[in-house]
């Protein structure tokens, strides 16, 4: 009896072209937009493409805007009426700075297969510490650079400690860091609420610390607008450089330093790492500490931009960081670009109804990226099952 049939097999791929990562990320975004379009329809928005165009315009501006802006820059005139010039770009950069830092926090941890989902909480703690320094520790007359540096240091230290705790628990007691970092998120939210909403830091009945002294906030590009008029209204601040510098530093650590080598070996094959005499325990704590520090710095970044700390401090940057890290394929330099794009997404969707579209898009993107992650390791093959025929052979 002849049997001929086909079978679909998923088998391990031996070659691994780098373009797969880029393609799958792009695919993720495209698919997300498509799915998002359907969801928008279901929610009553009748023109998804128009909505997307709006989002892009709000987030980045149109090429016409950019052109107008460049012209105004060169001619040293005001931004012409009706044009947005660099406005959206500036807003996007502002939004991108904290999520770049949280993405970097996730990247360094994920590289070692440490699932730090607590970047949000670490960011909150950093914001809390930076506020403490700015409002209660240093006198309001402190010089701006000193103040900002102190705040940054506070944010880093707070985040570092808050990240090292789950690291320690994992290294010593092998406790799942996913749960501990998650729980610590909520504890950090409540901690902040305690101080700012009902507790010692709140001013009067307001759930806020009140405005920081001027020195405890970022200088803005718009402060230069008397000399360069087109910069008027641009709120972008040096915080974005914190992220870029951190990304470059992280890239150096990962790809050029001895420590980075250890991290990559552990994340790739812990057995081989042990074989090479690399200490797993020490690195777990160190990497979680660094991860927390970066997220804590993001907190300082935000709080210096907001110039106050109140009960409406945005949650969720840590989780966005996870997505950016994943989309950037855990590459710190790629994260800069992805964070910029996400910043645009967030800014662009701020005024769009319905709210929550950013989160939904993020979810779909992550799904598609995770699903196509598969392409990295496997290959789908359709093969014929061999015929099984009876071939009676005369026995020797």
């Amino acid at each position, binding site marked *: 009896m002849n049997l001929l049939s086909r079978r679909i097999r998923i088998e391990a791929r031996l070659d691994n072209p780098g373009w797969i990562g880029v393609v799958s990320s792009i695919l993720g975004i495209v698919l997300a937009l498509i799915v998002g379009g359907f969801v928008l329809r279901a929610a009553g928005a009748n023109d998804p493409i128009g909505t997307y165009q709006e989002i892009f315009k709000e987030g980045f501006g149109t090429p016409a805007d950019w052109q107008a802006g460049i012209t105004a820059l060169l001619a040293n005139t005001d931004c012409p009426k009706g044009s947005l010039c660099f406005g959206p770009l500036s807003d996007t950069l502002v939004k991108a700075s904290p999520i770049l830092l949280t993405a970097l926090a996730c990247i360094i941890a994920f590289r070692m297969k440490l699932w730090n989902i607590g970047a949000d909480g670490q960011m909150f703690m950093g914001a809390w510490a930076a506020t403490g320094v700015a409002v209660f520790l240093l006198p309001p007359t402190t010089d701006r650079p000193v103040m900002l540096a102190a705040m940054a240091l506070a944010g880093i230290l707070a985040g570092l400690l808050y990240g090292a705790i789950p690291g320690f628990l994992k290294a010593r007691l092998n406790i799942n860091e996913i749960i501990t970092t998650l729980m610590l998120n909520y504890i950090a939210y409540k901690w902040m609420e305690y101080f700012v909403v009902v507790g010692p830091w709140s001013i009067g009945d307001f759930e806020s610390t009140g405005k920081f002294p001027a020195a405890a906030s970022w200088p803005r590009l718009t402060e230069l607008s008397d000399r360069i008029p087109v910069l008027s209204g641009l709120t972008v601040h040096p915080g974005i450089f914190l992220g870029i510098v951190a990304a470059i530093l992280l890239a150096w650590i990962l790809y050029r330093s001895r420590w980075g080598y250890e991290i*990559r070996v552990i994340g790739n094959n812990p057995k*081989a790492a042990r074989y090479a005499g690399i200490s797993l325990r020490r690195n777990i704590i160190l990497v979680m500490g660094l991860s927390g520090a970066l997220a804590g710095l993001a907190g300082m970044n935000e709080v210096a931009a907001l110039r106050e700390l109140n009960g409406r401090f945005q949650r969720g940057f840590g989780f966005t960081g996870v997505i950016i890290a994943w989309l950037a394929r855990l590459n710190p330099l790629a994260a800069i670009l992805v964070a910029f794009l996400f910043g645009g997404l967030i800014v662009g969707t701020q005024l769009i109804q319905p709210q929550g579209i950013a989160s939904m898009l993020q979810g779909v993107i992550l799904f598609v990226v995770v699903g196509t992650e598969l392409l990295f390791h496997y290959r789908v093959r359709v093969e014929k099952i061999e015929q099984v025929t009876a071939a009676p052979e005369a026995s020797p």
Partner: protein
Amino acid sequence: MTEAPNAFEMRGIVKRFPGVLANDRVDFACQVGEVHALLGENGAGKSTLMNILAGMYRPDVGEILVKNQRVSFHSPQDAIAHGIGMIHQHFMLVPSHTVAENMVLGLNQPRFLLNLSHIEEQVRALGEQYGLVVNPRAKIWELSVGEQQRVEVLKMLFRGAKVLIMDEPTAVLTPQEVETLFLTLRDMIKQGHSIVFISHKLDEVVSIADRVTVLRYGRVTAANVPAQGTTKSQLARLMVGREVLFLVEKEKIEPGEIILTTDRLCAYNDRGLPALRDVSLQIRAGEILAIAGVAGNGQRELAEVLTGLRSATSGSAHFEKTPLDNHTNWLEIGQHLAHIPEDRAAVGSVPSLSIAENLILKRFKRPPIAKGWSINKAAVRQNATRLVQEYNIATPTVETPARMLSGGNLQKVILARETSEKPKLLIADQPTRGLDVGAIESIHRLLMEHRNRGAAILLISEELDEIFSLADRIAVMYEGQIVGEMPAEGADIHQIGLMMAGVKAEA
């Protein structure tokens, strides 16, 4: 002599896997009420053949008859439905469940509610019938290995198996447990069962089997040989053959200083059974000592003890004058001691890192690779380029990830990494397993080069051809002991084959 009917028959079985012909037109049959041993070295095709019979694989060509009816098995369940059950080397028992729960897993009856006490009763009764006493309430992880094996046997009997295939059953048993097992098997035969006994151990085969069939390189070299009346050396010859495939130029070298000694080394394996029993060895500079033996007789544990991955329970080992024990500074000794591990993918390499980065795994903390806190990229690349050339590693670039290499080239990377700093002692555990001819040749050449420049090499291998072409001296390991040691020149391959199969040297 009346011929008993065949419990089953396999005719003309051919089975191919990528790159290897596991079964080459094999005929195999087993009579009702007999113990039929399937003898052969590792890789001879025994397990594959029996996996086909047990319904795990489908043969590419050939047919199977059970009680003279053509059958076609699509799954192990089909085989069991026809009364054929297999007990693997790795038991298919859920450790945290009880014996009774394992017994009843996957059956159709009872359909929904499990009356465990009823099942426990059945297990008890069955156990008594066959003399396989085991506590049905015990959890599997609480049982000894011998008891677990009993559960596996009972599991098959519970499902009505008439033919039992046992894959290297004594590998995990103590001598007493082996005796008990043999008594049980004899008992089962009387009750009308048939047993296929896969093994590489001649003594046991001769002791328990009625007939023996020998496989070598996928082919039957002897069929249905009655166990009584055949000499062990005849069987050994059929098992290991006499061809030597590779001949490497061997310089005559005067061995130098003693580099490695072990003195009555003892150690346990992962299961807590003794794996090394009073192993005493000595290797000098410029010589290759090969450990011959079927894998699983303690060789891996020996390599692990000598490289700090396992603690010895008694006895000692010394690298030159330095003792190798819990206090050894392995990072430091690592400069002089090279280890080619048995499992190259799992322990030996870091798959997603580039070849260049894999090559510095042991050296990244020291200059010239280390430059302060950073890694000297230029030095890494230089090192890699040099090694790739020297060791003839086939790769598009040195930045290619290690997982994209073929097995042979990956092994060369590991060799390069381990031996590029001219170690004094090299421990190679199955270095050419699974590699093609070309790769094997290169690795043999490399080992020879190191030997010629004065390294002491401990070569652990299952391949007698390899051992004969490389070794200066040969030691045979069986069940954790050195059962024989001799110079390679003039060694009798049949004698070695016998020793590998557990037969003490005959006068």
